[in-house]
């Protein structure tokens, strides 16, 4: 099938830079998610790959072929839109057959292929209906069938699940992932839903304001974000960030009144470079909330009081407000009971905690690498 490669791709609409110097490679058979908030340019990037938009600068390659100037129809892509863009005046069969008819394939061939793809997506009993007679989930299958029927090299999906209700979305998510693996097709998937990206993709590219911030496997992007934005965008609830001051002599971090040792992997770096203000980042699962008991030797921890506790059934999200008006969310087991205003301590799993430079918001190791720190 096809490897998609973008080289220094920039797209401007007038003065607005929608995509800024993007470099990205999507390997053959890979499921790539373009993840970003709305207006981040992720859909523009998809439409650039589709050929609906042409880049202002840069080149796009499918395998070794430069497709930058090719019109969409010559790129052999399947595209599924957020609103599915079915042709309302055509029956489901004709909707799916449309790309084949344009290729001037024979009637029998069309019938065979449409039936085949319809069977695969379990919509073969709906072929004689009109789109408006179908449910949302069925319409979405028709849209996917129409994209797949021409056997494209790349399948492009623009938020295809966001018009479905939550329960259906979960089911389709699994089915879509399975389908992509079975067909072995290169897929690029645009979404603003981090859970979707983490659940479905082989690789995630996080995009903000037209810039690709980080590309990596879901595990990588989740556990080792390169910058504060990525950490704060992935995860539900997202990563916590706490402003802290570095005490160089002792290798400790000062957070309000509390002192905790800096995460061990940063010990060297903090000694080597002179940086005073950092952001301590940790995931809600990588910390523990403990009740403060008088006359007990305290482990190093952050101190604060409970702002709210939200039981989720299996566990509880505890929101703690630290002395300096910073709110952090931590998961606690459901056995622990908390009341509003309880004094609590937060003990971090320091192996998993990260430090970010306060000014550039890059994770420290990258900030030093790029020599961009305050």
């Amino acid at each position, binding site marked *: 099938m096809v490897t998609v490669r973008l080289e220094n791709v920039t797209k401007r609409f007038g003065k607005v830079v929608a995509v800024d110097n993007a470099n990205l490679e999507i390997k053959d058979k890979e499921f790539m998610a373009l993840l970003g908030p709305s207006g981040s340019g992720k859909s523009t990037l998809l439409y650039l790959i589709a050929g609906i938009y042409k880049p202002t600068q840069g080149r796009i390659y499918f395998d070794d072929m430069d497709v930058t100037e090719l019109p969409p*129809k010559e790129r052999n892509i399947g595209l599924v839109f957020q609103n599915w*863009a079915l042709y309302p005046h055509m029956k489901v069969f004709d909707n799916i057959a449309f790309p084949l008819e344009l290729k001037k394939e024979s009637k029998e061939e069309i019938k065979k292929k449409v039936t085949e793809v319809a069977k695969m997506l379990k919509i073969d009993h709906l072929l004689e209906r009109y789109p*408006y007679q179908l449910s949302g989930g069925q319409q979405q299958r028709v849209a996917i069938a129409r994209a797949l029927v021409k056997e494209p090299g790349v399948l492009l999906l623009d938020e295809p699940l966001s018009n479905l209700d939550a329960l259906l979305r979960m089911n389709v998510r699994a089915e879509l992932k399975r389908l992509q693996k079975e067909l072995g097709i290169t897929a690029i998937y645009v979404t603003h839903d981090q859970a979707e990206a983490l659940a479905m993709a082989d690789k995630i590219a996080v995009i903000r304001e037209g810039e690709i911030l980080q590309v990596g496997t879901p595990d990588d992007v989740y556990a080792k974000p390169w910058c504060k934005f990525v950490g704060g965008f992935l995860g539900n609830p997202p990563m916590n960030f706490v402003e802290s001051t570095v005490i160089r002599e002792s290798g400790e971090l000062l957070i309000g009144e509390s002192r905790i040792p800096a995460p061990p992997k940063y010990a060297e770096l903090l000694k080597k470079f002179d940086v005073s203000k950092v952001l301590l980042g940790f995931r809600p699962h990588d910390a523990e909330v403990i009740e403060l008991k008088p006359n007990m030797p305290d482990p190093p921890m952050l101190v604060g009081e409970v702002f709210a506790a939200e039981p989720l059934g299996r566990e509880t999200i505890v929101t703690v407000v630290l002395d300096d008006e910073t709110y952090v969310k931590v998961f606690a087991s459901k056995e622990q009971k908390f009341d509003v205003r309880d004094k609590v301590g937060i003990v971090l799993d320091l192996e998993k905690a990260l430090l970010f430079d306060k000014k550039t918001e890059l994770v420290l190791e990258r900030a030093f690498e790029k020599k961009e720190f305050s």
Partner: protein
Amino acid sequence: MLTDVEVRSKKTEVAITIAILMASIPLFLAFSLLVLSSFSKEMMTNLSLESFRFTIENWINVLQGKLAFTGGIRQNILKYTFNTALVALGVAGVVTLISALSGYALSRMNFRGRKFLLMFLLMLHAFPGVALIVGVYLLYRLSLPSSPSLVTTFSFMYVIVARAALEVPMATWLMKGFFDSIPWEIEWSAIVDGASRIRVWRKILLPLIKPGIAAILLFGFLAGWQDLIYVRTFLVEPTLATYIEANLEAEYSHMPLIAAAGTLYLLPTIIFFLTSQKLLLETHSGGIKG
């Protein structure tokens, strides 16, 4: 009784209906007098029912082309009706074709001067056709073919194009609105599937704006059907409008007979509005369903 916000109370409903009926009395009266007179031996314009004596002679005479009971003046009214229909259909066709293409371009293509053109179209629409007639006549004289045998055909073509030109600006504006209402994704989807833009226009977009096309065909037809000034200035042959106008004040004409011709002239308008209502209101319930 509790009502939803979009439901008007019975009382206001009745009041509004009465007001509308009152307001339409003069119009309704005029039309009914015309229709009644066409079936009467005398005109009913004195508003007295006694003057109504039923006859269908007027209609027979009109259809036979007789203008008066006496004398042998005969005019081929069927031919005039055909001429009128020809002009009307021509105008409808030309207006719809041009506006469907230009409306698409204005809605979906980015080109220099697009905004200006949009404003200009509205201004053109505000321009009265009568004011242009001197210039349009000059062009007519300049382009008139020298061979007399072609003049009749030419005058048909000319009047159709000239009359259509008056309708095109507003029709284009309306068409642009219809195209605007179709999401871009549908067009993109078809382009990615391999369709050319002209094919997208014909196969995907036109079927989606059928009600709009029907409306513009209808308005185009009626514009051509009811036109008097352009037809009278350019067309060599008479239409129903010029026929009625020419005979309205002729000494020999029998007024109830003219009323019959007038009723005949009104028929398509009435028929169209009665039959096309459903089509105009029809919209595709496509799009998104959760």
